[in-house]
């Protein structure tokens, strides 16, 4: 695959490195001479110095035959324009843009960028998992199925602490797969397995029933009785 990357900062560099190792033809477009040199020194002749939003540069880079076009600069407006140029002027089929302001996701989607990756949103999601108000951690999305693997930490106040798995009124198509206790010991649960405060419950559930699952495991005693 011929993959073009706009932006040779940290993300662009490691992305290029990995994609080259995977056997792809990679070209990085970067404005800064020092960054270009670093990439050339370490990864070889795979870098073009220039502005990835500039028609002339994209032409010289053979954008027309790119299978994938990824823009990962630190500025959302540059990522948007680079991808729009690639898509609309050079007919690149797949464009991917890094987004810094999570609120820009909607506009990028609306303007035809195929995939957006919001680094801020990802970091935020991870931080939020550490906060008591967000005890559900999405671990993995099972592609195309609408199913997710999630982890919920059972808080000490949970009405379910001290109950058995069989007593949980789980949402449809929701399976509890592993229960990890506070010592870090995993157990494969059956309906008699006791859920204790501090346990981490790993479950497979539909994305839309995430909230329901979280509510079941984290609702305080008072509210349910």
């Amino acid at each position, binding site marked *: 695959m011929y993959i073009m990357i706009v932006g040779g900062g940290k993300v662009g560099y490691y992305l290029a490195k990995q994609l080259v190792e995977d056997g792809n033809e990679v070209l990085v477009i970067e404005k800064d001479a020092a960054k270009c040199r670093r990439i050339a020194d370490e990864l070889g002749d795979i870098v073009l110095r220039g502005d990835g*939003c*500039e*028609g*002339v540069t994209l032409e010289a880079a053979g954008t027309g035959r790119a299978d994938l076009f990824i823009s990962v600069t630190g*500025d*959302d*407006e*540059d990522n*948007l*324009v680079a991808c*729009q*140029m690639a898509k*609309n*002027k050079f007919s690149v089929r797949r464009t991917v843009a890094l987004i810094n*302001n999570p*609120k*820009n996701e*909607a*506009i990028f989607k*609306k*303007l035809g960028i195929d995939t957006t990756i919001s680094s801020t949103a990802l970091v935020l999601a991870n931080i939020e998992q550490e906060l008591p108000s967000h005890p559900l951690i999405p671990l993995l999305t099972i592609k195309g199925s609408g199913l997710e693997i999630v982890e919920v930490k059972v808080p000490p106040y949970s009405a379910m602490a001290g109950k058995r798995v069989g007593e949980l009124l789980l949402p449809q198509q929701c399976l509890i797969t592993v229960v990890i206790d506070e010592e870090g010991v995993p157990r494969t649960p059956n309906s008699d397995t006791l859920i204790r405060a501090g346990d981490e419950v790993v479950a497979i559930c539909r994305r839309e029933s995430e909230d329901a699952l979280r509510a079941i495991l984290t609702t305080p005693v008072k509210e349910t009785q």
Partner: protein
Amino acid sequence: MKIVIMGCGRVGAELATLLDREGQEVTILDIDPDAFDQLPADFKGSHVVGNGIDQDVLRRVGLADADAFVAASPGDNRNVMASQVAKHIFGVPRVVCRVFDPIRQDLYRSLGLETISPTREVARLLKQALESGPAETPSGEG
């Protein structure tokens, strides 16, 4: 008419002043608080420090009920992004965008944005001036 202008450089400030003197309701945005020094003392419109590609900032300046948006920042990419946000997210009826790069102008024009390229316009005017001969230039410039 309620008009929001992004970018208080020479062009933005001049445009804001012209519209303000016509009695339009003008709001001008810039990321640099010092940029507003270019506005005349009698400017009656409002000026707001903020990033014109940030939807929260655009919401705060009331873009949702603006009649027109003009993007006149020095960056082509900022201008086309802000203009697309104004047009597609806020539904502003009239959006005009400055784009220096003629190639980018072609693209965004084909994508339905109303664009003006100073590069092309000025080149055309300069050519015209050259061709019309020295007789038409005001005295004192020769």
